[in-house]
């Protein structure tokens, strides 16, 4: 495929009109038609059916459109980076993270972006999934990393980055710390500690409710450090992502039969013009080796 062929095809998809597409691409209509024809030859079928009033995209055209659009958008991102790299232009980066995202997961990538754009200006927001979604919508944040957002909006582009596994964390002094298997019923009478708006704590509580276990109390703290601090003091059992701050004093475990994992996603708003710094952050986050990162192996060596 040639870049210009893809660009012209996307213009036709947008306008459904060959002369307007040619105009938008600043080329003649025959040149546009020729390029579309070449692309059709390569992809093995008609992409656009040309009619006087009802020019439309064929099934094959619809089938290839998302991948060609993505290839084209990544081309724009790659070109913008190659052009702006180390040029020292002003690079604002408004990033939103949900509270469960450990900064260590993102910080090497942010450093790399800062190397590429020495005049980067980061404004980071932390909040609930609902707040993160709102900020993306109203443009206060351009890019976000969070678990599932509470509200759906068709313009939000969601890309799964990795699976985040939660578990129980307790002091080694805790009575349950010696058990190999922890079942829901073992939690009777315990204090559960979780961070504010922790969706995984909601999952545990709903399991407890279903099992009719009302004796478990839920306690909320704003920061992960608050949680681990209280767990260390053996105040109660924490619910938090696996692999965070395992210093040996804490014991991580799972609850038998309760799946506490969810997808952590990268969010941007489709159709918005992003700065090169934002596009570069997106590239680096997508390309990153999350499997090694999240297995925890690299951090506990």
């Amino acid at each position, binding site marked *: *495929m*040639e*870049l210009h062929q*893809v660009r012209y095809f996307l213009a036709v998809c947008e306008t459904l009109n060959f002369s307007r597409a040619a105009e938008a691409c600043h080329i003649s209509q025959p040149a546009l038609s020729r390029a579309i024809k*070449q692309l059709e*030859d*390569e*992809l*093995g079928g008609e992409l656009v059916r040309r009619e006087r009033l009802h020019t439309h995209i064929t099934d094959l055209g619809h089938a*290839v459109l*998302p*991948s060609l659009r*993505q*290839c*084209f*958008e*990544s*081309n*724009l*991102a*790659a*070109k913008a*980076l*190659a*052009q702006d*790299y*180390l040029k020292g232009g002003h690079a604002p980066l408004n990033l939103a993270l949900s509270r469960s995202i450990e900064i260590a997961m993102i910080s*090497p*990538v942010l450093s*790399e972006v800062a*190397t*590429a754009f020495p005049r980067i200006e980061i404004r980071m927001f932390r909040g609930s999934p609902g707040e993160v979604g709102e900020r993306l919508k109203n443009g206060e944040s351009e890019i976000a990393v969070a678990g599932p957002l509470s509200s759906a909006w068709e313009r939000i582009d969601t*890309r799964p980055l990795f699976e985040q596994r939660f578990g129980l964390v307790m002091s080694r002094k805790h009575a349950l710390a010696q058990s190999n298997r922890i079942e829901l019923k073992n939690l009777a009478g315990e204090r559960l500690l979780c961070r504010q708006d922790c969706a995984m704590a909601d999952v545990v509580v709903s399991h407890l409710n279903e099992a009719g276990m009302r004796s478990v109390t839920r306690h909320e703290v704003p920061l992960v450090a608050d949680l681990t601090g209280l767990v260390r003091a053996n105040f109660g059992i924490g619910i938090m992502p696996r692999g965070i701050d395992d210093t040996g004093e804490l014991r991580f475990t799972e609850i038998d039969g309760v799946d506490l994992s969810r997808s952590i996603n990268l969010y941007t708003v489709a159709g918005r013009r992003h700065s090169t710094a934002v596009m570069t952050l997106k*590239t*680096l986050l*997508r*390309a*990153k*080796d*999350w*499997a*090694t990162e999240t297995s925890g192996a690299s951090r506990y060596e």
Partner: protein
Amino acid sequence: MSEASLSQVLEACTQRCREMDAPLGDRLQSFADDVRRLDPVFAEVVDRMVAHLLRVEAGAGAPNIGEPFPSFVLPDENGHLVSLEGLLRSGPAVIAFHRGHWCPYCRINAETLARIEPELKRAGAHLVIITPETQHFTRELKADAKATFPILTDLDCGYALDLGVAFKVPEEKRAAMTSAGFDISGFNDNSNWTLPIPATFVVGDDGLVKARYVDPDYRHRMDIQEILRAARS
């Protein structure tokens, strides 16, 4: 017992072709012969795809000798950005597009490139491989090839599109690959089945193409002696 997939059976062939004492072209040919012997139907699907790509002149628009090579800044297997400009600071650069860590031809090719890396270094030349795969898999290709040079991620073949070497794997080939155990949809952070033609370029420190090899037949790669000659010239 379940039958081994073609990709599993080909593992031994990959090793054998890596160890053969013969030029890269002969070793790749020997591997292609293995594929044809083990699964003639698969080989015919490959033939049809290659014939189609040749007919539509896929890759014909790639930069020619003497033309400027488009600049790039792409992340390596550790997430560090590598720029063409940076590579060219000390001399020429060899830039090889590969399909991925799953591709036996790329594995044979990458390991052979790793072997000439010291020689290239002495000539002041840098070497990089570009694939559409994310870092988990570029790391695998690098370890498998025992390479010390960077392997770069070109997401969605966005940069390859700039050079006209990106193509969509046709439906027939995709089905054949999937049933042969080469399902690549988990490697590229997309399910687009877009791959680069495994082209190789030698770019001079002036940013102009000194040598190039662009063949839509992924079973053929640039001759290693040719690469060395161009890098030294």
